[in-house]
Protein backbone atom coordinates (compact mmCIF):
# COMPACT_ATOMS: atom_id res chain seq x y z
CA UNK A 1 0.00 0.00 0.00
CA UNK A 2 1.07 3.66 0.33
CA UNK A 3 3.72 5.16 2.52
CA UNK A 4 2.78 6.86 5.78
CA UNK A 5 3.23 10.64 5.59
CA UNK A 6 4.83 12.51 8.43
CA UNK A 7 4.04 16.20 8.41
CA UNK A 8 6.44 18.44 10.29
CA UNK A 9 6.36 22.19 10.77
CA UNK A 10 8.64 25.13 11.45
CA UNK A 11 6.17 27.19 13.47
CA UNK A 12 8.50 27.68 16.44
CA UNK A 13 11.34 28.90 14.17
CA UNK A 14 9.01 31.17 12.23
CA UNK A 15 7.64 32.65 15.46
CA UNK A 16 11.21 33.39 16.54
CA UNK A 17 11.96 35.21 13.28
CA UNK A 18 8.63 37.04 13.46
CA UNK A 19 9.94 39.13 16.35
CA UNK A 20 9.25 36.37 18.91
CA UNK A 21 5.57 36.25 18.09
CA UNK A 22 3.77 34.60 21.01
CA UNK A 23 1.64 31.47 20.64
CA UNK A 24 -1.33 33.58 21.65
CA UNK A 25 -0.71 36.11 18.87
CA UNK A 26 -0.34 33.36 16.28
CA UNK A 27 -3.47 31.63 17.59
CA UNK A 28 -5.46 34.85 17.24
CA UNK A 29 -4.12 35.54 13.74
CA UNK A 30 -4.81 31.98 12.57
CA UNK A 31 -8.20 31.72 14.29
CA UNK A 32 -7.17 28.73 16.39
CA UNK A 33 -6.83 28.16 20.11
CA UNK A 34 -3.54 28.51 21.98
CA UNK A 35 -3.65 24.78 22.82
CA UNK A 36 -3.83 23.95 19.11
CA UNK A 37 -0.71 26.01 18.41
CA UNK A 38 1.04 24.27 21.32
CA UNK A 39 -0.03 20.85 19.97
CA UNK A 40 1.17 21.78 16.48
CA UNK A 41 4.59 22.84 17.76
CA UNK A 42 4.85 19.64 19.79
CA UNK A 43 3.97 17.58 16.71
CA UNK A 44 0.81 16.27 18.35
CA UNK A 45 -1.59 17.54 15.73
CA UNK A 46 -1.69 17.84 11.96
CA UNK A 47 -3.80 20.82 10.90
CA UNK A 48 -6.42 20.89 8.19
CA UNK A 49 -5.42 22.47 4.90
CA UNK A 50 -7.43 25.56 5.79
CA UNK A 51 -5.68 26.08 9.14
CA UNK A 52 -2.31 25.39 7.52
CA UNK A 53 -2.97 28.17 5.00
CA UNK A 54 -4.11 30.53 7.76
CA UNK A 55 -0.92 29.88 9.76
CA UNK A 56 1.24 30.45 6.68
CA UNK A 57 -0.71 33.64 6.02
CA UNK A 58 -0.11 34.81 9.60
CA UNK A 59 3.63 34.60 8.94
CA UNK A 60 3.29 36.03 5.44
CA UNK A 61 4.98 33.01 3.84
CA UNK A 62 3.87 30.17 1.61
CA UNK A 63 2.49 26.97 3.11
CA UNK A 64 5.60 25.04 1.96
CA UNK A 65 7.78 27.25 4.15
CA UNK A 66 5.79 26.26 7.25
CA UNK A 67 4.94 22.63 6.63
CA UNK A 68 6.81 19.81 5.00
CA UNK A 69 6.18 16.13 4.71
CA UNK A 70 8.33 13.07 4.42
CA UNK A 71 7.49 9.48 3.73
CA UNK A 72 8.09 7.63 6.96
CA UNK A 73 7.37 3.92 6.65
CA UNK A 74 5.25 1.39 4.84
CA UNK A 75 1.70 1.45 6.15
CA UNK A 76 -0.02 -1.87 6.75
Amino acid sequence: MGKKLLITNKIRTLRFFANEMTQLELAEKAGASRQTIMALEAGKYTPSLELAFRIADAFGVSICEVFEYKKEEESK
Partner: protein
Amino acid sequence: MTYPSKRTLISIGVGILLLVVYVIYALGDASPAPDDLKLWALALLVYIGACIAAGIVIQILFHIALAIGIAVKEKPGDDKKVERIIKSSMLEDEREKLISLKSSHIGHAFSGFGFVTGLIALAVGSSAVVVLHIMAGAFAVGSIIEGCVSVYHHERGVPNG
Protein backbone atom coordinates in the same frame (compact mmCIF):
# COMPACT_ATOMS: atom_id res chain seq x y z
CA MET B 1 -1.68 19.17 31.33
CA THR B 2 -3.93 21.39 29.22
CA TYR B 3 -7.04 23.18 30.45
CA PRO B 4 -9.53 20.98 28.50
CA SER B 5 -7.85 17.82 29.91
CA LYS B 6 -8.13 19.07 33.49
CA ARG B 7 -11.77 20.04 32.95
CA THR B 8 -12.56 16.64 31.43
CA LEU B 9 -10.74 14.77 34.22
CA ILE B 10 -12.75 16.62 36.86
CA SER B 11 -15.94 15.84 34.91
CA ILE B 12 -14.97 12.14 34.80
CA GLY B 13 -14.28 12.17 38.57
CA VAL B 14 -17.63 13.78 39.33
CA GLY B 15 -19.36 11.40 36.90
CA ILE B 16 -17.84 8.37 38.65
CA LEU B 17 -18.74 9.83 42.06
CA LEU B 18 -22.38 10.37 41.05
CA LEU B 19 -22.53 6.88 39.55
CA VAL B 20 -21.18 5.38 42.79
CA VAL B 21 -23.73 7.38 44.81
CA TYR B 22 -26.53 6.09 42.57
CA VAL B 23 -25.29 2.48 42.81
CA ILE B 24 -25.15 2.76 46.63
CA TYR B 25 -28.70 4.15 46.59
CA ALA B 26 -29.92 1.45 44.18
CA LEU B 27 -28.43 -1.37 46.26
CA GLY B 28 -29.47 0.16 49.61
CA ASP B 29 -32.62 -0.21 51.64
CA ALA B 30 -34.04 3.16 50.54
CA SER B 31 -34.31 2.08 46.91
CA PRO B 32 -37.75 1.45 45.34
CA ALA B 33 -39.20 -2.05 45.04
CA PRO B 34 -37.67 -4.14 42.19
CA ASP B 35 -40.90 -4.03 40.18
CA ASP B 36 -41.74 -0.36 40.74
CA LEU B 37 -40.72 0.94 37.32
CA LYS B 38 -42.18 4.42 37.90
CA LEU B 39 -40.07 5.09 41.00
CA TRP B 40 -36.91 3.71 39.34
CA ALA B 41 -37.50 5.98 36.38
CA LEU B 42 -37.87 8.91 38.79
CA ALA B 43 -34.63 7.94 40.56
CA LEU B 44 -32.82 7.79 37.21
CA LEU B 45 -34.26 11.17 36.22
CA VAL B 46 -32.93 12.69 39.45
CA TYR B 47 -29.52 11.07 38.75
CA ILE B 48 -29.44 12.48 35.19
CA GLY B 49 -30.49 15.91 36.51
CA ALA B 50 -27.69 15.79 39.10
CA CYS B 51 -25.19 14.89 36.33
CA ILE B 52 -26.33 17.85 34.18
CA ALA B 53 -26.24 20.26 37.15
CA ALA B 54 -22.76 19.02 38.13
CA GLY B 55 -21.57 19.53 34.55
CA ILE B 56 -22.78 23.14 34.53
CA VAL B 57 -21.22 23.87 37.94
CA ILE B 58 -17.88 22.37 36.78
CA GLN B 59 -17.91 24.58 33.67
CA ILE B 60 -18.52 27.72 35.75
CA LEU B 61 -15.97 26.82 38.44
CA PHE B 62 -13.33 25.96 35.86
CA HIS B 63 -13.89 29.21 33.99
CA ILE B 64 -13.36 31.11 37.25
CA ALA B 65 -10.31 28.98 38.18
CA LEU B 66 -8.82 29.51 34.72
CA ALA B 67 -9.28 33.28 34.96
CA ILE B 68 -7.69 33.39 38.41
CA GLY B 69 -4.81 31.09 37.35
CA ILE B 70 -3.98 33.20 34.28
CA ALA B 71 -4.35 36.48 36.18
CA VAL B 72 -1.88 35.25 38.83
CA LYS B 73 0.62 34.11 36.15
CA GLU B 74 0.46 37.29 34.06
CA LYS B 75 1.55 40.76 35.08
CA PRO B 76 -0.94 42.43 37.42
CA GLY B 77 -3.14 44.98 35.70
CA ASP B 78 -2.83 43.44 32.25
CA ASP B 79 -6.54 42.64 32.10
CA LYS B 80 -6.72 42.72 28.30
CA LYS B 81 -4.07 40.02 27.93
CA VAL B 82 -5.78 37.84 30.55
CA GLU B 83 -9.03 38.25 28.63
CA ARG B 84 -7.30 37.33 25.35
CA ILE B 85 -5.73 34.19 26.87
CA ILE B 86 -9.06 33.07 28.34
CA LYS B 87 -10.83 33.71 25.04
CA SER B 88 -8.17 31.73 23.17
CA SER B 89 -8.21 28.88 25.71
CA MET B 90 -12.00 28.57 25.52
CA LEU B 91 -12.13 28.70 21.73
CA GLU B 92 -13.55 25.56 20.16
CA ASP B 93 -11.50 25.22 17.01
CA GLU B 94 -11.04 22.39 14.53
CA ARG B 95 -8.79 20.35 16.86
CA GLU B 96 -11.34 20.54 19.69
CA LYS B 97 -14.12 19.52 17.31
CA LEU B 98 -12.04 16.61 15.97
CA ILE B 99 -11.24 15.35 19.48
CA SER B 100 -14.88 15.75 20.47
CA LEU B 101 -15.98 13.81 17.38
CA LYS B 102 -13.50 10.96 17.92
CA SER B 103 -14.27 10.59 21.62
CA SER B 104 -18.05 10.83 21.20
CA HIS B 105 -17.84 8.15 18.49
CA ILE B 106 -16.39 5.69 21.02
CA GLY B 107 -18.80 6.82 23.75
CA HIS B 108 -21.79 6.32 21.45
CA ALA B 109 -20.53 2.89 20.37
CA PHE B 110 -20.42 1.81 24.02
CA SER B 111 -23.90 3.23 24.66
CA GLY B 112 -25.19 1.36 21.61
CA PHE B 113 -23.60 -1.83 22.91
CA GLY B 114 -25.44 -1.27 26.22
CA PHE B 115 -28.72 -0.75 24.40
CA VAL B 116 -28.32 -4.05 22.51
CA THR B 117 -27.27 -5.82 25.74
CA GLY B 118 -30.44 -4.43 27.36
CA LEU B 119 -32.59 -5.78 24.52
CA ILE B 120 -30.91 -9.18 24.80
CA ALA B 121 -31.53 -9.16 28.57
CA LEU B 122 -35.19 -8.34 27.90
CA ALA B 123 -35.39 -11.13 25.32
CA VAL B 124 -34.09 -13.71 27.79
CA GLY B 125 -36.64 -12.68 30.39
CA SER B 126 -34.96 -10.05 32.59
CA SER B 127 -37.22 -7.51 34.27
CA ALA B 128 -37.79 -4.04 32.82
CA VAL B 129 -35.95 -2.45 35.77
CA VAL B 130 -32.82 -4.53 35.05
CA VAL B 131 -32.96 -3.57 31.36
CA LEU B 132 -33.44 0.08 32.30
CA HIS B 133 -30.32 -0.05 34.46
CA ILE B 134 -28.25 -1.86 31.85
CA MET B 135 -29.08 0.91 29.36
CA ALA B 136 -28.58 3.75 31.85
CA GLY B 137 -25.32 2.17 33.03
CA ALA B 138 -24.07 1.87 29.46
CA PHE B 139 -24.81 5.56 28.86
CA ALA B 140 -23.02 6.54 32.09
CA VAL B 141 -19.97 4.35 31.42
CA GLY B 142 -20.00 5.42 27.74
CA SER B 143 -19.83 9.04 28.88
CA ILE B 144 -16.89 8.24 31.19
CA ILE B 145 -15.07 6.39 28.38
CA GLU B 146 -15.75 9.35 26.09
CA GLY B 147 -14.03 11.62 28.61
CA CYS B 148 -11.04 9.27 28.92
CA VAL B 149 -10.61 9.16 25.12
CA SER B 150 -10.86 12.96 25.01
CA VAL B 151 -8.09 13.33 27.62
CA TYR B 152 -5.96 10.77 25.75
CA HIS B 153 -6.25 12.74 22.49
CA HIS B 154 -5.59 16.05 24.21
CA GLU B 155 -2.42 14.75 25.82
CA ARG B 156 -1.06 12.31 23.25
CA GLY B 157 -2.18 14.11 20.13
CA VAL B 158 -4.77 13.45 17.49
CA PRO B 159 -4.11 12.63 13.83
CA ASN B 160 -6.14 14.60 11.31
CA GLY B 161 -7.88 12.15 9.02
